[in-house]
């Protein structure tokens, strides 16, 4: 139980997926203009990464590893993730329309989000079992949601500020991210 807690806190706060590992920068910069959309994207990412880390973990544990096909992991994982995202999208559309309406727009964007593939590959590198992998995936995604929602909140305020012309748009967002990244360094004392 203690190890799981350390994995959870470590991946959500200390080694935040966006601010210290630079995975998922695209949605972090692209979909963080409003708090609602940022939260929607975060929810979709939590959903997909948790399922994806479970399925890729199971595939690695029960198929690739026993058969000695570890070298196929990159190819298998990316195809599984791409198929999974579309399957999740179709499933939600049929079974849970309200959830689909909330998350649907963001789901196709997630396929090439490097955070999903990165989490699956990191699970293998770190030698996590399936349970540890799912906890790692879930808390990484929660860390992503924390970062993108805070960023969206700051960006809503930045709108009213007077920023020099060259720094408008992306540069000021990146500067904010740099400051957030420094702030998240504060968590490194926890573990």
């Amino acid at each position, binding site marked *: 139980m203690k190890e799981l807690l350390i994995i959870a806190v470590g991946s959500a706060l200390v080694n935040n997926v966006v*601010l*210290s*590992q*630079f*995975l*998922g*920068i*695209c*949605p972090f*910069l*692209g*979909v963080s203009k409003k708090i609602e959309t940022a939260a929607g994207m975060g929810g979709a990412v939590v959903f997909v990464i948790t399922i994806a880390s479970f399925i890729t973990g199971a595939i690695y544990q029960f198929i690739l590893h026993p058969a000695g096909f570890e*070298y*196929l*992991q*990159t*190819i298998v994982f*990316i*195809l599984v993730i*791409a*198929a999974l*995202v*579309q399957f999740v999208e*179709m499933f939600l559309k049929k079974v849970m329309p309200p959830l689909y309406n909330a998350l649907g727009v963001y789901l*196709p*964007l997630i*396929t*090439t*989000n*490097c955070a999903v*593939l*990165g989490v699956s*590959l*990191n699970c293998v*590198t770190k030698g996590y079992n399936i349970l540890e992998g799912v906890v790692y995936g879930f808390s990484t995604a929660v860390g992503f949601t924390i970062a993108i929602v805070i960023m969206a909140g700051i960006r809503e305020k930045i709108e009213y500020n007077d920023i020099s*012309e*060259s*720094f*408008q*748009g*992306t*540069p*000021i967002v*990146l*500067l904010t*991210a*740099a*400051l957030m*990244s*420094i702030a998240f*360094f504060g968590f490194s004392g926890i573990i």
Partner: protein
Amino acid sequence: MNKCTERLYNGLVKENPTFVMMLGMCPTLAVTTSAINGIGMGLSTTVVLIFSNLLISLLRKIIPDSVRMPAFIVVVATLVTVVQFLMEGFVPGLYASLGVYIPLIVVNCIILGRAEAYASKNPVLPSIFDGIGMGLGFTFGLTCIGIVRELIGSGKVFGLQIMPDIYEPVTIFILAPGAFLVLAFLVAARNKIMKRMEAKGKKVVKAQGCCEGGCASCGGCDAQVFPTGQEKE
């Protein structure tokens, strides 16, 4: 051969993936802690890009349009796996310091973007040169950022001491916040130069990466990878 040199110029200068198009920002931020890492990442991406452009251009008439995305992904993922094992065998130090970002070349916008935008529509030879140009442009961008961060962050360039001993290295530049900081000033400088060029009446290439247009521009991001079940409804 004229078209080939034009592709090289296009990749290196006119549509430079790092400085002009703003593509592939994840590896740009993550691995540029030193100039060597920047070159290593750039060159491995270049190799994957050249061969993926070559193969996709060869296969462009065979791959059906409806399954082209999964086909591209399989081609790219295979090449990335090959590059990964070659690096593990021959440059283990570099492989260790680049870590998970080597397999993550698969989801780099530049590669799927070039496959979709150029290689799947053009003959083999220009596609290869397009890959070389884009790849070298990316390598150039990463190396420049790597040199700046290494020089400020540890006073060295390519591992050689450049700054005098009295210089106190600003360590934060080789840590995570430094990456965001350097990129922020880079994008600001780009905006300034582009504004000036626009004022002079020159044609300006728009940034296409994550920074500007969401992910809408790179082929794989907003397109359905497996277009199943969608048309029926």
